[in-house]
């Protein structure tokens, strides 16, 4: 049994019916044209509908994906050495070796090197509390400062020399003798001094880590503090934001 030749079948049918088909198409076209001509209002009506559709669906403010739209930076004829110098200067500004980043609002500390995060730790930063000494009119705001700091000193088993606010907070007058300000063990095993009385140190209350409870210092858990202490040197940058 041979397969039917579709092409020849179609051609045969076309030859047989093409005259009639053409007549039919012409007749339908004439009728349609006549129908449209008798209804002259159709064209303006269609145009109005088209305008409404275009206005309603094709007009408005839309969100489009980002593209530079011809504003991508282009290479220029600048002195190659100048570009190289700027690139080098930019690299030189980046911290060398390990550095510490503190996100004081989210209470997170990151030990980083380049773009890599070596260690992420839960910490505690300043509570933001305002303490007023009504006797002398002094005011303390317990915020952790933002900016770049450097580790100025590292200490093992640090001793806390309590500042005035620590006594005022307890409702006491600050003592005259320096020896009465010394407190041992409060700061944990290590302390990294950042200047102006701010430190990264340990805590007796590890359950409060992750909450903003300090007087401006950064508190860390025992293990994290040890790791940060070991990785940081005097001069290591500490970025607090």
């Amino acid at each position, binding site marked *: 049994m041979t397969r039917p030749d579709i092409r020849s079948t179609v051609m045969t049918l076309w030859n047989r019916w093409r005259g009639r088909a053409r007549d039919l198409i012409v007749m339908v076209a004439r009728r349609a044209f006549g129908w449209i001509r008798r209804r*002259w209002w159709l*064209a303006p009506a269609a*145009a109005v509908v088209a*305008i409404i559709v275009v206005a309603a669906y094709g007009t408005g403010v839309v969100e489009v994906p*980002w593209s530079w739209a011809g*504003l991508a930076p282009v290479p220029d004829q600048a002195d190659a050495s100048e570009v190289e110098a*700027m690139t080098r200067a930019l690299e030189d500004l980046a911290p060398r070796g390990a550095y510490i980043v503190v996100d004081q609002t989210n209470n997170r500390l990151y030990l980083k090197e380049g773009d890599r995060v070596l260690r992420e730790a839960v910490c505690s930063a300043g509570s933001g509390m305002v303490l007023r000494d009504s006797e002398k009119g002094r005011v303390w705001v317990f915020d952790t400062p933002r900016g770049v700091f450097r580790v100025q000193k590292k200490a093992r088993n640090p001793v806390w020399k309590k500042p005035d606010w620590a006594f005022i907070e307890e409702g006491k007058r600050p003592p005259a003798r320096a020896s009465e300000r010394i407190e041992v063990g409060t700061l944990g095993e290590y302390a990294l001094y950042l200047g102006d009385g701010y430190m990264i140190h340990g805590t007796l209350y590890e359950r409060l880590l992750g909450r903003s409870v300090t007087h401006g210092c950064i508190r860390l858990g025992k293990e994290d503090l040890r790791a940060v202490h070991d990785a940081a040197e005097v001069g290591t940058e500490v970025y607090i934001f």
Partner: protein
Amino acid sequence: MQHFPNKLSALGRTSRTRIGPSGAWLCLAACAVACARQSPSPAPTRAEVLRARLDLARSDAFHLVLDPDRGRLELRLRGALLRDHRVLAITRPARRIAFFRVRDDLSWVSGVHDHGRLVPERPTDRYEVEVHPGDPGSPRPEARVPPPPEEAIPAPPIWLIQFEDGLDLEVVSASAPQEPPDRWESWKQALGFSPFHGTRLRLVLDDADAAVLYRSLPPDVRLLIAPSD
């Protein structure tokens, strides 16, 4: 059968029949002219972008560097990368007239944008206490255990960083509910009947990432939109 009760001439009929299409073509031509207006601003050179980055890195200002090509938003200070956020999508508003997009002036993309501030502002809960040392009746600070930051500072699903020059960085959490646009307002803006705020970039961030950024964005942040190479 009388199809034209009034005595219109064939010429009149023809003219009337052409009013609609002619009007439509005129509208389209006007739209095409409006859309063809090109942004006159020249693209910055790589050296200029590098200089801007260097100036920012030398300043003491916290700054954001948005690299749209890599989908990264970096928070930096003095050359150090403090945090980077993966941007899932970046879009900007564009006007469309008769399905043709109007080419807006995008010169605002270049340059450094200053004094970014959060909208809505981050709530601050300051506990104040006044102590009279030596007076046993004086109030003492309560031993308060504040809530964790996620509870203390809840981040809205959509928030803005508004810059001094008018640029808005709209940060949207990936799961933020999509509100249907105000079609009438959108239409008025497209046609110039109401002011069009085109200097806005919408960044879609992962929910947690968007919330973390909202809580920790430093005040007066600066912004540079630039490829990172």
